[in-house]
């Protein structure tokens, strides 16, 4: 079955932590270094995330995600290394242009921050079923209707792309050009995407009534078929993260006013 979800059940330690606990890990990984203003702590979180992901046997799945941001990070390093205002100390002279120490340090800071976000996110999304995240939010009062929208997307998007590839094949077999000059490619875009858009929007009517007749707008308190079996470590870890995060914020406030 095609789903956009990156989740895999490996029966690992991270699989057994509650979604709330892992969500708080992301908050802690971003807030604590920001409060303490120390890049070493960010690096510490990156290492911790990598260790956790390796232990959960999903570290390889971070590669496609790293590739997306990696490309942008390279442009950041080039642009800041070459052009950043305040660049003074040449590190690498390439003749017409030169890389400067100040720009590269600035770029390195950005890279650390970005990598920290990516790995912390991966701790959650690679090891948690989307519906578990949403169900835990809904049971804490999050709108079940918006929750439905989130969860359904993981399957509805692949369904739509599948339908789209059918249309693409049909248009190609009728001799539509999808390669060539920019104008030709622009012209190809409209007949390709219009039928998918139209039918998706028209289908929404039937999907809406099909949901309504299954009690989608029911005012009863929802029950859940599946139960999440959290491991014993979830609760203490949650509290440690919470206390550490609050402590870092308090420390920052004290430093500001002291």
């Amino acid at each position, binding site marked *: 079955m095609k789903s956009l979800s990156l989740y895999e059940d490996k029966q690992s330690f991270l699989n057994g932590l509650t979604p709330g606990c892992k969500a708080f890990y992301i908050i802690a990984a971003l807030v604590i270094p920001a409060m303490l203003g120390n890049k070493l702590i960010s690096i510490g979180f990156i290492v911790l995330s990598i260790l956790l992901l390796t232990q959960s046997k999903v570290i390889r799945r971070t590669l496609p995600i790293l590739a997306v*941001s990696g490309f*942008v990070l390279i442009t950041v390093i080039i642009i800041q290394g070459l052009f950043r*205002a305040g660049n003074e100390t040449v590190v690498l002279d390439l003749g017409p242009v030169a890389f400067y120490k100040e720009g590269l340090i600035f770029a390195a800071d950005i890279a650390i921050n970005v990598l920290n976000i990516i790995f912390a*996110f991966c701790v959650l999304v690679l090891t948690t079923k989307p519906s578990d995240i949403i169900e835990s939010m809904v049971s804490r009062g999050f709108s079940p209707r918006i929750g439905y929208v989130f969860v359904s*997307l993981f399957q*509805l998007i692949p369904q739509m792309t599948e339908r789209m590839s059918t249309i693409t094949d049909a248009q190609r077999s009728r001799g539509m050009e999808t390669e060539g000059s920019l104008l030709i490619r622009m012209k190809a*875009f409209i007949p390709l995407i219009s039928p998918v858009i139209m039918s998706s*929007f028209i289908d*929404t009517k039937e999907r809406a009534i099909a949901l309504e007749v299954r009690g989608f707008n029911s005012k009863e308190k929802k029950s859940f078929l599946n139960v999440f079996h959290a491991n014993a470590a979830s609760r203490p870890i949650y509290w440690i993260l919470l206390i550490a995060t609050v402590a870092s914020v308090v420390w920052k406030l004290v430093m500001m006013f002291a």
Partner: protein
Amino acid sequence: MKNKNNNSPWSLKINTASLVLIPAAVGINYIGKLFAGMLKLPLWLDSIGTCLAAALAGPVVGAISGAINNIIYGVTMDPISTVYAFSQAGIGIVVGLMAYYGALKSLKGTLLTGIFGGAAAVVISTPLNIIFWGGTTGNLWGDLAYAAAVAKHFPLWQASTIDEIIVDIPDKIVVLLLVAALFKGLPKSLMSLYQSNHRIESLD
């Protein structure tokens, strides 16, 4: 001309018909982006769904579509794109409001909607670009402009704004032209479904 049903554009009561527009909108954004990549077009075209949903069901649905769109990107491909949920939501709000006041009925209005929608994205994205990426966008043409501006000693925020304008405004204009055309093509019977406080007339 205003919508004759006089729903407030800000109504937070979202009926089921409007709600299921959101997954359709996000799916279309996704497909637009995929196609633009496949055909190697120099535009993102990844907000067609958001803008169409906003035009049909108003700024609130537009904003939610935009935000959910980026959160889904965030958890499936690119975690950093989550923070740009704010920009997408901004586009949804602007397009939803413009459509509510009938802007998509004329070419001029459509172009203006594209420019305003793009401007909303620029205003919200630029600070985020500066915080997370030092001001660049990862788009080749935009970043070349950024590099040129920085090399000419423009302040960072100006260089970053120029970068984002190049990325967003032309894209949103093309998207809105498409959306206005599609909007006219959708069956009329769909439109009335999104008006949640339409009264039921009596035939007795």
